[in-house]
């Protein structure tokens, strides 16, 4: 027994002695430091030979290798510096391609707007309505290239996602309440002025140009079927050159609204991720100004003030156009990150989903409202509900979660119906396509919703508008500062942008007249204004 105990003690002692080794607790000699990669390692990285490549690469394993890294000195071969430069260029290339492709999607929205507006108008005005939507692209672009882009972005400073845009560095600033107020940019006239012939500036121009044109084309819908073509051209030019760029500078170009956070401690300053305010509210508010000046279509209101419905001529076009717009919106909102790589840009996934959810919720909101109120699920208002949801989510899409998006969309869908009724029956302002309500009213709702629903989870490089942290609304613990910043933006849109648009269009009315002759309006504008019928084989009847 004693011998057994003795053996057991020896065994236990031995186990205690070796246990640390077994359990890895004993200090071990530090491992040799990893050998730093040298230029020689990089230069010696394996790459397929020309013979191997000549046989083709059906599975893609030989394409895109060390041999594709740009080399600064062919004698030395690839160096670590070359690799780092290539990584940086890859990041910016990804962001360039992302921004350009999403810009192309936004450009295609012009087609959606064109057929939505034309479908909602009468057949006798089809050519005129299409031509306004077609030429607003060129008229707006010309104005924006000449001066608009410089006013909007001439002082934006470095746009990190595009590799910096150093030439855009001159903002005109005035001092108010002891703080700097950015008013307009000064570099970038004709895209060559003061060094702006620059690859990053070109990408930024393309993306911002298609946004500006979206705002301009909103007005053509509200003023359709009675707007004199010459007046449309001048009015659109003024909007693309001055009205839109000025507000866009204040919100996106380093202007005073964006800096409400840094200067007055109001949240992260005025926030508008993709343009509910900058694009849609500016367009909708200008549409209201023009529609008020131009007056309603003949036959729209009876002497008693009763409103008559003037029916759309092609609901197929309308709903097809709505789908095109919803498709283009995937460029509008996710593209507004101006990049897919770095600085929290992987939010593009949630931005795209927020966009589609809000559009769905908007169409449901409008369809159910119309169904309950008028006993039919109205097609054109369901389409407008989709657009209203998309408009409303445009500003908050980068800052809210999916539940917030659906709530914002449903509210927008109902709001567009209420607003159409108010504009039509209370204000007696004729808006053939509902543009004032879809873009104006819901643009303002989208701006406001950030101050309520922003969940504080987004993080685009750690700050927004120069204020560190994430954009947070009242429902997620903000002290109300963000909501005030958003309301100041809304007050600027309603008080300043409306006034500027109204005065510009009064001047156009004074100079060339905004409205066509009644005879032309009754016949339809295709022949008197454009010289050719949109549908020459149709039998059209003039109202008499």
């Amino acid at each position, binding site marked *: 027994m004693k011998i057994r105990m003795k053996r057991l003690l020896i065994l236990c002692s031995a186990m205690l002695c070796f246990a640390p080794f077994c359990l890895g607790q004993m200090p071990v000699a530090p491992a040799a430091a990893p050998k730093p990669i040298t230029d020689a390692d990089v230069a010696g990285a394996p790459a397929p030979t020309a013979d191997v490549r000549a046989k083709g690469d059906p599975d893609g394993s030989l394409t895109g290798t060390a041999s594709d890294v740009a080399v600064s000195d062919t004698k030395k071969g690839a160096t670590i510096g070359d690799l780092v430069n290539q990584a940086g260029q890859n990041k910016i290339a990804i962001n360039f391609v992302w921004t350009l492709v999403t810009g192309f999607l936004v450009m295609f929205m012009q087609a959606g707007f064109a057929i939505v507006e034309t479908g909602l108008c009468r057949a006798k005005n089809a050519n005129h309505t299409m031509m306004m939507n077609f030429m607003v692209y060129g008229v707006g672009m010309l104005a924006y290239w000449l001066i608009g882009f410089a006013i909007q972005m001439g002082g934006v400073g470095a746009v990190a996602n595009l590799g910096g845009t150093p030439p855009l560095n001159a903002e005109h600033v005035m001092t108010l309440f002891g703080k700097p107020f950015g008013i307009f940019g000064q570099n970038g006239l004709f895209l060559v002025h003061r060094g702006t012939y620059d690859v990053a500036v070109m990408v930024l121009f393309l993306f911002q140009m298609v946004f500006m044109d979206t705002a301009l084309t909103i007005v053509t819908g509200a003023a359709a079927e009675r707007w004199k073509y010459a007046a449309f051209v001048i009015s659109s030019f003024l909007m693309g050159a001055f009205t839109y760029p000025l507000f866009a500078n204040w919100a996106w170009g380093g202007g005073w609204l964006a800096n409400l956070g840094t200067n007055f401690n*109001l949240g992260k300053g005025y926030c508008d991720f993709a343009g509910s305010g900058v694009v849609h509210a500016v367009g909708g508010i200008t549409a209201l100004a023009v529609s008020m*000046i131009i007056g309603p279509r003949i036959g729209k209101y009876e002497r008693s003030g009763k409103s008559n419905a003037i029916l759309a001529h092609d609901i197929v076009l309308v709903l097809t156009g709505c789908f095109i717009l919803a498709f283009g919106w995937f460029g509008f909102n996710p593209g507004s990150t101006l990049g897919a790589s770095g600085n929290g840009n992987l939010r593009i996934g949630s931005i795209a989903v927020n966009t589609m959810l809000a559009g769905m919720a908007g169409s449901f909101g409008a369809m159910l409202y119309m169904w309950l109120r008028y006993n039919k699920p109205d097609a054109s208002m369901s389409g407008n509900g989709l657009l209203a949801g998309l408009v409303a989510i445009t500003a908050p899409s980068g800052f809210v979660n999916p539940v917030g998006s659906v709530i914002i969309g449903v509210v927008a869908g109902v709001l567009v119906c209420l607003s159409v009724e108010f504009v039509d029956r209370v204000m007696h302002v004729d808006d053939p396509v509902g543009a004032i309500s879809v873009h104006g009213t819901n643009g303002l709702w989208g701006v406001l919703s950030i101050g309520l629903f922003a969940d504080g989870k987004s993080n685009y490089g750690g700050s927004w508008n120069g204020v560190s942290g994430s954009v947070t609304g009242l429902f997620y613990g903000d002290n109300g500062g963000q909501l005030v910043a958003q309301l100041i933006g809304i007050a600027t849109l309603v008080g300043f942008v409306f006034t500027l648009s109204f005065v510009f269009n009064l001047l156009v009315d004074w100079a060339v007249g905004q409205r066509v002759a009644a005879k032309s309006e009754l016949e339809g504008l295709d022949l008197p204004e454009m010289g050719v019928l949109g549908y020459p084989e149709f039998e059209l009847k003039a109202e008499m």
Partner: protein
Amino acid sequence: MGLPEGQTLGKFRKLRSSESMMIFVGILITLSGFVISVLSLALNSNAARLAVVVLGLAVSLFGIVGVLNRAYLKDAIWKKG
């Protein structure tokens, strides 16, 4: 449907002086709402700023809906039949 006389011109509709004055006043009121909202930045409390901004917004909306739009409705073509 007869052609409203005011619309047959196809150019700048001649507004009566009272309507022109109303439009001028409407523009001033709408713009003053914006100025009031900007003046809220001179305050320190967010609650006070909120109140002043909402006041400015209301003033602008009154200028648009209550004054400018009413000026155009006063002599609207559809009222003449």
